[in-house]
């Protein structure tokens, strides 16, 4: 049996960082990835595809899409013909969900995981986020504050490359940014009006992990906005383009693909974990690999699944579950308040290229404006002039009608809100001992619903969106409160929440299991609250921080 200093499970956003940080600190690391190997560039098979190369010119679903993706097919067109090979097949890797609205668990089983298809928004958590649970009593207090993670945000941002703009806001902390992408005229107009008419509301460019200044081995963003196909320019951050090459360069990394982590095996004397059992996805053979420390970065629910499945005499309810809270307090973000408007100004202008990020209205609910609900939301927005893409929704037929498709339409402004979900005990994942996957491991069961507070956020966001459009002189074409299915933000988190008290939480302030200190859980599972910010930057920062702790304590 091979033996390493550290085993990292999962190669996505968090696992890539763990591999980089640990190997650069001189540790021998085995990176266990359940999916197939992916080579940067070579395996971005649709990156250069023309529409006419695709099934039905790329329009609509691929053949057997619904069958293949099952519940996840609700994610069309976010998951589409150009990127579906980077998403997990529901037929071969099913899960159970007991929700009024089914929970969409969109996974990426390949080297690099979902870092290949992520939304790339990099927004720091603030002290008001780390304080929130303590302040209003939902969930438990985070054991860390902004000062604990701030240096790690610095480190991550500098390495991955984030473009954006500093705004000097406590609740939306500044960072180390490359020059921002440009706003177009409508967006600038909207910013000017909103910031003038609504004191304290800030409209800014998205903080996105797309380069505007090149980095070694990676060139600047070409504004194709095809990120989810993979980018051979390496212009957006992914494990494949950035952290894994850095880890490989040390000579300390061994990558094992097609290896499905099944359980951690505990030494009955010490109570610490001694090895990982995984299943060779090709042969079905069970194998064991030893290490001194273990990093679970398999994505929130899969990391929890491994822990729940790591039952032993010492840990009959799963490893790290002495509090009974393993799998509980799962969260996602709630997305909704979709609003579309048109503007009949700036007709003599158009934009060029496809900017890979939205503009943002930073959270004002319960930051600068009091509301009758808890927590907050922010908006992602953007404007462009669309032509043929809107033609099908317009009346008319014949030659004049089709000619209109090559003329620029009015500026269309779109908004959507992203809100915080409260951490609640009843939202949880468990193992179903009666349903097994193709590897013979119990299937994960997800129980999740939005709280009334979550829904109130979106109701308010929809109302405020319409008001802001009117204030800016736009005409609302459509606006609805309607939320996406739970999980559709693809920001699932929680299940192994961080806290100081082992009787209430699963990991401590260093992301170590209270019950087995040589196991670190550094992906979304550790989150004690969700804030409304996109969470990946925080996962990366927490991972880098935990790696230093692991390396330092190993050297001790």
């Amino acid at each position, binding site marked *: 049996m091979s033996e390493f200093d550290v085993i990292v499970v999962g190669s996505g956003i968090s696992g890539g960082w763990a591999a980089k940080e640990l190997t650069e600190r001189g540790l021998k690391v085995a990176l266990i990835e359940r999916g197939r190997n992916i080579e940067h560039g070579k395996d971005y098979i649709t990156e250069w595809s023309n529409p006419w190369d695709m099934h*039905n010119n790329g329009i609509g679903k691929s053949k057997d899409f619904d069958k293949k993706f099952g519940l996840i097919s609700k994610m069309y067109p976010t998951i589409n013909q150009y990127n579906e090979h980077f998403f997990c097949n529901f037929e071969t890797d099913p899960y159970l969900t007991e929700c009024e609205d089914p929970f969409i668990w969109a996974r990426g089983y390949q080297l690099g995981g979902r870092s290949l298809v992520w939304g790339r928004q990099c927004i720091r958590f603030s002290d008001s986020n780390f304080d929130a649970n303590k302040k209003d009593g939902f969930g438990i207090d985070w054991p860390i504050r902004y000062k604990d993670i701030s240096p790690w945000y610095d480190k991550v941002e500098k390495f991955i490359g984030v473009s954006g703009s500093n705004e000097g806001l406590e609740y939306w902390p500044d960072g180390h940014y490359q020059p921002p992408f440009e706003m177009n005229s409508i967006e600038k107009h909207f910013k000017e009006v909103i910031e003038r008419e609504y004191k304290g509301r800030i409209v800014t460019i998205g903080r996105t992990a797309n380069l505007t200044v090149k980095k070694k081995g990676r060139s600047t963003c070409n504004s194709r906005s095809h990120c989810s196909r993979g980018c051979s320019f390496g212009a957006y951050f992914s494990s494949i383009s950035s952290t894994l090459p850095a880890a490989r360069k040390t000579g300390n990394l061994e990558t094992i693909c097609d290896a499905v982590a099944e359980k951690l095996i505990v030494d009955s004397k010490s109570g610490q974990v001694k090895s990982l059992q995984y299943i060779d996805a090709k042969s079905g053979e069970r194998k064991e690999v030893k290490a001194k420390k273990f990093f679970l970065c398999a994505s929130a629910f899969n990391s929890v699944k491994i822990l729940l499945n790591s039952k032993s005499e010492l840990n009959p309810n799963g490893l790290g579950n002495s509090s009974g809270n393993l799998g509980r307090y799962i969260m996602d973000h709630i997305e909704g308040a979709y609003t579309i408007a048109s503007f009949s100004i700036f007709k003599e202008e158009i934009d060029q290229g496809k900017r890979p990020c939205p503009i943002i209205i930073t959270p004002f609910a319960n930051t600068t404006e009091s509301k009758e609900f808890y927590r907050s939301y922010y908006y992602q927005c953007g404007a462009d002039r669309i032509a043929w893409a809107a033609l099908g929704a317009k009346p008319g037929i014949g030659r004049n009608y089709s000619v209109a498709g090559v003329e620029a339409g009015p500026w269309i402004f779109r908004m959507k809100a992203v809100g915080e979900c409260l951490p609640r005990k009843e939202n949880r994942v468990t193992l179903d001992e009666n349903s097994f996957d193709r590897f013979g491991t119990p299937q994960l069961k997800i129980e999740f619903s939005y709280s009334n507070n979550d829904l109130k956020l979106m109701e308010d966001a929809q109302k405020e969106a319409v008001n802001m459009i009117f204030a800016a002189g736009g005409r609302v074409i459509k606006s609805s409160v309607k939320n996406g299915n739970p999980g559709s933000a693809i920001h699932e988190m929680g299940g192994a929440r961080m806290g100081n008290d082992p009787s209430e939480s699963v990991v401590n302030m260093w992301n170590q299991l209270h019950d087995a200190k040589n196991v670190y859980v550094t992906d979304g599972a550790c989150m004690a609250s969700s804030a409304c910010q996109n969470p990946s930057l925080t996962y990366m920062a927490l991972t880098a921080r935990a790696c230093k702790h692991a390396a330092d304590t190993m050297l001790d």
Partner: protein
Amino acid sequence: MVGFSLKSSAIELQKNSDYIRKDKIDFDLVEAICTTIIPGIFEHAEKVSSQVYQHYKSNYFTEWKLFFIQLQSAFMEEYQVSFQESSQSQKTYFLSGIDADAFNKLYEGNPISEFFVTYVAIKGLCVDLYFTSEYVVNNLLVYNRVPGKYIGKTPYVENMKLYYEDPFASRSMIFAGHLYE
């Protein structure tokens, strides 16, 4: 034609229909509808007919089948000739009526029947397939695969060629759940 109405139930029409084969679609009818919506569509987007057929077959078999039966029957009642054998002006007049009815109902926020839903879907498909066809993308639009940089403000003058818009570009996708419903 001011409005479009169906005088017989779909099932009754299906039973009595000589115009539509029960088990498969009539390609001539599909082509006639598509070329009426976008004249010349098959010169540039030759796959449209089979693509409409694929959608018909794989996604919406019952609704789409009834749509073609209903449309053909209503047309026959009015003109005593099949849709595909009629003159271009008859086709245009007839489809314009359906189009106006569908969009009036949509704009008024009224619920629309499966017939109109199917019509709007076919029309949308024609538009999408036409404007993503190799000819249109390369000739009527500017196909710049690597723009290099995003520029927020450039002059727009009438009749200038526009850049090809990728409906799956990330920025649009932010709103996908809404736009594609």
